């Protein structure tokens, strides 16, 4: 080619110069484990479903959610949301209201009538589940999704377990519970009510079950020895809450004293108030800081006029219901010690809320089982000492919450599935945790949490209407959009924009990005400026 004066070379693009050869470290896109997912006892992919909710794609969000937890509307009401306690946004302004978004999705699913995907072809295996509480229902759902034929034997007249017989209506309306149970049964799960299992091995043999999952819960109220007159009315909390579901409401009287400091004590006191008690008094031997009940429940109870006597134990109950109370004082180690000071408290009834025991009679005669502290010991795969019999929920050593129980159901289902196929279930390795230090908080705007509306106090004291309301669509989306997407790319285009070498390739919506290592010099700006910590630098191999 004829070139102009003094020109000897063609004009070339700098693309010929592969500056990637300068690099000693390279950026790498990663997915880190968001703290919410890490904290969820049910193993939900919270960041994953919020991602869809942010875009207003609620059905997609719900479908991601129910891959792990079949009862979001229940969960959005009764879960103590450890996800929110661990949310990175809590260190920035306030934690994302994950629980309220979950409830919105659950309610939306009921309203729109969304159904679970049909199970794949049947495996031909039959699994018996004992107990239709959160753990049993969750296991039934996950086993059905894996193609197994599931039958639930429930001793009581209704499904739901502690969700029905332990959690009062004002926290969990029964139509919500019914709707979510029905959706699980619609998958082909057989539920047999009023069917008590007396001997698990006999029941398994009689109908040819290949495996069993026990989830009978803990329904026997613990007693403590309190000398009481023969006419004194002493009840246990589980019994009171249980009878709330029957025709005959419990007769508690005008002055009700509840003994204990757990969530059940609070539930009973609030129930008594709604049944017409003029005074509902909780007697607890330690202080508010030491109380095992969740603080927001204590707060709600106090708002409703529940009285709490701290540092007090009940020594005696007279025939007329007069309680002798001894004042306690905390010692150096924080344990309550008697002081020898007494007072008298009049009451019409005393309700003991001192924890619950498990009815283990169905396990009589099963070889190889280990029972310790009143609960069944299980392997990390939730299998008992008897091969093929698994157990979960309140009857195994655990924190006794609905969410933990649902998590047990999922975990047991996966292990039962593997066991039925003659293998063992290997959980995928956990990603590195996306802690706050890995984020670049500059990019997140200040946006305070949206508060859920609360029922006014007067109605809370006299009716069983639901106390906490839900969010409307726009508020739920606003709340979802407060998610910082910790550790997972949400396509903000920052890496694509901030690269001085144009070495980030944008692959288009939903496809994220890729590094062009021919030109990436390894400066690391993309890592520093990634808001959510989804890129890391790794040394080049020499």
């Amino acid at each position, binding site marked *: 080619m004829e070139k102009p004066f003094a020109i000897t*070379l*063609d*004009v*070339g*693009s*700098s*693309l*010929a*110069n*592969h*500056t990637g050869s*300068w690099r000693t470290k390279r950026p790498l896109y990663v997915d880190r484990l968001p703290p919410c997912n890490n904290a969820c006892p049910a193993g939900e992919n919270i960041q994953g479903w919020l991602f869809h909710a*942010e*875009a207003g794609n609620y059905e997609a969000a719900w479908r991601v959610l129910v891959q792990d937890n079949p009862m979001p509307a229940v969960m959005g009401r009764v879960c103590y949301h450890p996800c929110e306690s661990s949310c990175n946004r809590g260190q920035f302004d306030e934690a994302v209201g994950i629980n309220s978004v979950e409830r919105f999705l659950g309610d939306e699913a009921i309203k729109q009538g969304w159904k679970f995907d049909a199970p794949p072809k049947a495996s031909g295996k039959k699994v018996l589940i004992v107990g239709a509480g959160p753990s049993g229902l969750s296991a039934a759902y996950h086993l059905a999704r894996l193609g197994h034929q599931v039958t639930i034997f429930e001793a009581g007249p209704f499904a739901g377990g502690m969700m029905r017989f332990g959690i009062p209506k004002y926290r969990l309306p029964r139509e919500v519970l019914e709707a979510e149970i029905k959706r699980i049964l619609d998958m082909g799960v057989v539920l047999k009510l009023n069917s008590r299992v007396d001997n698990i091995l006999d029941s398994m043999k009689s109908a040819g079950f290949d495996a069993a999952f026990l989830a009978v819960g803990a329904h026997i109220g613990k007693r403590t020895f309190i000398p009481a007159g023969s006419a004194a009315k002493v009840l246990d909390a589980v019994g009171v809450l249980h009878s709330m579901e029957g025709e005959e409401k419990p007769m508690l009287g005008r002055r009700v004293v509840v003994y204990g400091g757990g969530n059940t004590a609070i539930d009973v006191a609030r129930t008594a108030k709604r049944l017409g008690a003029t005074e509902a008094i909780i007697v607890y031997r330690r202080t508010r800081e030491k109380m095992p009940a969740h603080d927001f429940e204590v707060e709600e109870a106090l708002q409703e006029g529940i009285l709490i006597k701290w540092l007090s134990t009940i020594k005696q109950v007279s025939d007329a219901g007069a309680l002798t109370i001894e004042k306690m004082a905390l010692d150096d180690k924080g344990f309550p010690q008697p002081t020898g000071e007494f007072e008298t408290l009049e009451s019409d009834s005393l309700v003991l809320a001192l924890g619950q025991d498990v009815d283990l009679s169905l396990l009589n005669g099963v070889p190889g089982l280990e029972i310790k502290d009143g609960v069944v010991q299980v392997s990390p795969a939730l299998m008992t000492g008897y091969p093929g019999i698994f157990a979960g929920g309140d009857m195994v050593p655990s924190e006794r919450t609905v969410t933990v129980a649902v998590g047990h159901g999922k975990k047991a289902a996966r292990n039962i599935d593997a066991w039925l196929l003659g293998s063992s279930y290997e959980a995928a390795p956990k990603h590195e945790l996306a802690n706050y230090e890995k984020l670049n908080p*500059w*990019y*997140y*705007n200040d*946006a305070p949490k*949206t508060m859920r*509306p609360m029922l006014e106090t007067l109605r809370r004291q006299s009716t069983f209407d639901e106390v906490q309301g839900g*969010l*409307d669509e*726009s*508020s739920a*989306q*606003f709340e979802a*959009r*407060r*998610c*910082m*997407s910790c550790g997972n790319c*949400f*396509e*903000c*285009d*920052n890496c*694509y*924009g*901030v*690269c*001085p*070498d*144009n*070495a980030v390739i*944008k692959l*288009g*919506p*939903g496809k994220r990005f890729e590094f062009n290592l*021919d*030109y990436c*010099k*390894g*400066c*690391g*700006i993309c*890592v*520093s*400026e990634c*808001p959510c910590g989804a890129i890391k630098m790794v040394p080049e191999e020499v």
Partner: protein
Amino acid sequence: MPFQPVKFYQTGTFTVGNRLLAPEERTVQANMQRTNGLNSGHRACQGCGEALGARYAIDAAMRACNNQLVAANATGCLEVFSTPYPETSWQIPWIHSLFGNTAAVATGIAAALKVKGRREVRVVAQGGDGGTTDIGFGCLSGMFERNDDVLYICYDNEAYMNTGVQRSSATPPAARTATTMPVGVEPGNVFGQGKNVPQIAMAHNIPYVATATVADLHDLEYKVTKAMGMHGARYIHIFVPCPLGWGAASNDTIKLARLARETGLFAVYEAEHGEVTSVSKIRKRVPVEEYLKLQKRFVHLFGKTPATETIARIQAMADRNIRKFGLLEEEGV
């Protein structure tokens, strides 16, 4: 519950783009079809703020004028790293002028286009702080004074980086450069006024003057687009950290630009006809130490016996900027 408009709160408007934003609300840089005016393969150092600033500005200018753009470029880093013969990283019509005459060359191009009746083709002149505040200053002032139809963009990295980090009139006080060594009673660059070219440009009463940083892309693109919508002499001064010359980590480029703004050391504002029309407020005010500590050119201010007096003087400069431009949100607003 009161009406809550659905807003975009995940990352506000600070990120480059976002899948949830309407396309017109995203930046030019978020677009898969951006010009990439300064393409890959250029030889700027790792983490070069100037390369980043130039692509931001040129891509925004290209979109604003429907890709009808000519650029004149002063000698300096930007020219050297982008066009080692026979390669070029520029994907726009581009001419290399002398060190000191970019403004005059751009004026000539604008005049020629006018004579040829090519009103749709726009002209940009660009250079570093050396080519702008020192060597090219006479030509630049002339371009302003004649109100020639050129947008002049200065990429300010506060020294002559290309030739080995010598002091320019944009170098900040106390900074170490090859010609202002940290020795003697007043180590580093002298305390003085330096040369504040955005303010001098405003004194020419030209249609548009703006400052920007590579840390706020939305603001930078807004200003380039606004300038391209006007005719006559316009000036944009972009703050571009230099990892090599400042002795900073290559991944801190944007962070440094952000800190320069958040300390108040670099005021971000725009002015029309000599009058300030808007300022970017500080979001989270930080003391100047946070900015200075990340750079080895200021390392002599710290160590065992920190030069507290010198740091206080630099803080006073930041405070003066904050007062002068009103960079803080007013109380109670």
